[in-house]
């Protein structure tokens, strides 16, 4: 299963390609279930961080994860990218591989799960010793073995799309936080993953830089990328999310559409949390 059959039928401006008849997954329609998480659990020592998480992600949809600090959002995201090994539960990709964490995962299985998605980190984690262009082409050239000229052309096109064409030859330290994060997004996009994962991509940014990054993410969503986003940006969630998942204490308390979630949350905990982030001074 390669990353290249991702997002077929999705707009295509950000480099998503269609490969007719390549794999079963490429016949999927927007809105079909892309993967299903069932009973995901994870402990760090005695601390059970995830207690049976269920999550359904549909192709081309944006899922926003919200919840109090320590509720396990990052751990869910990291598990999806195989940066964390859960102790139990399953992840099943429609027309693709499935993973059962009650059995121990060997390296190739972990790599296969990892290859379904790409992560955009809170602290961007760009490679400081590589230029912007090299950061973006590192995966395509050295992992996916894309011909160099093609990888560079694609990277340049992606950088132009996020307004960073003129920054291709500078080092990350020469960029603003917002620009760094946009490069981080492009680095993930260049891999053409089936799923883009974002862990609080704007929470380390100065407020005036948040908009640029969210705008890029909204464009990606409009183009039909499948995204799982941990964020507390309610405006973004309202405008872009197809489902909002509220987590607390290692469980999913509720999952629903943004309008349902923000206007009429079912759980008291959800309401309290939303009150607090919408109205931090408690007025």
């Amino acid at each position, binding site marked *: 299963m390669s990353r290249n059959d991702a997002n077929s039928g999705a707009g295509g401006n950000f480099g998503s390609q269609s490969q007719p008849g390549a794999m079963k997954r490429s016949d999927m329609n927007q809105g079909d279930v892309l993967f299903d998480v069932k009973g995901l659990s994870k402990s760090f020592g005695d601390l059970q961080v995830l207690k049976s998480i269920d999550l359904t992600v549909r192709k081309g949809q944006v899922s926003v994860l919200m919840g109090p600090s320590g509720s396990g959002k990052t751990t869910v995201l990291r598990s999806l990218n195989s940066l964390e090994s859960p102790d139990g539960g399953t992840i099943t990709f429609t027309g693709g591989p499935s993973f059962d964490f009650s059995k121990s995962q060997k390296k190739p299985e972990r790599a296969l799960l990892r290859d379904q998605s790409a992560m955009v980190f809170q602290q961007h984690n760009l490679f400081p*010793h590589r230029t912007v262009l090299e950061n973006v082409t590192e995966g395509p050239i050295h992992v996916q073995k894309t011909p160099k000229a093609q990888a560079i052309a694609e990277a340049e096109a992606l950088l132009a799309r996020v307004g960073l064409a003129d920054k291709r030859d500078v080092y990350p330290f020469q960029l603003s936080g917002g620009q760094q994060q946009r490069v981080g997004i492009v680095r993930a996009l260049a891999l053409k993953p089936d799923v883009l994962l974002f862990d609080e991509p704007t929470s380390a940014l100065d407020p005036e830089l948040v908009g640029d990054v969210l705008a890029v993410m909204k464009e990606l969503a409009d183009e039909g990328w499948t995204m799982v986003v941990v964020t507390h940006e309610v405006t973004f969630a309202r405008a872009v999310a197809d489902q909002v998942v509220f987590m607390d204490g290692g469980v999913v308390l509720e999952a629903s559409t943004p309008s349902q979630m923000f206007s009429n949350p079912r759980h008291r905990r959800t309401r309290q949390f939303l009150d607090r982030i919408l109205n931090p001074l408690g007025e």
Partner: protein
Amino acid sequence: MSDNAQLFLDSLWPIVEGAIKGTIPLALISFSLGLIIALIVALMRLSKSKVLSALARIYISIIRGTPLLVQLFVIFYGMPSVGITLDPWPSAIIAFSLNVGGYAAEVIRAAILSVPRGQWEAGYTIGMSQTQQLGRVILPQAARVSVPPLSNTFISLVKDSSLASLILVTETFRVSQEIAAFSQEFMLLYIEAALVYWVISTFLAFGQSMLEERLDRYVSK
């Protein structure tokens, strides 16, 4: 010209030749091999395997806990009694490489640990194997922080290589000793040898700062 000045000039070339044919290649070869040993030992030390990590720890402890001169003598004068007789050059290279390996291993280990964990994860998320993460992401960044301490190790090695004179390797110091014994001008010849070491060390320090500057191009000043 005074006799001393004449002796100085006459002995300069043989001593410099001792540096070119002895000290410098001895240091370069030993340092290169030593770095390879050091990288392997550092990775053993960092590995999850308790056995590998313990072996690495013992090795480092022995190298750092015993005098280099004793290590040199064990290999050259000691090994023949267990049936292994080595010539001066191989003995010196083995002793110095193992020595550098022990010291540089800790430098490299610390440098690898100084690279944030997020860098490993960024390499992982874009699909890299562990070897690629190490070779393309971690080591290039570790190199930057380890250049100053490794340069010190290298400069120390150049000076410590004079110990090889005691196992009959023809190098800078041994040449000057021989001329001193012959001419009885000890002060002059030993100062001349010191001068040669000093010039080499100064060049190396200069090379170090050029290298540091080059590796610093991607960090904010």
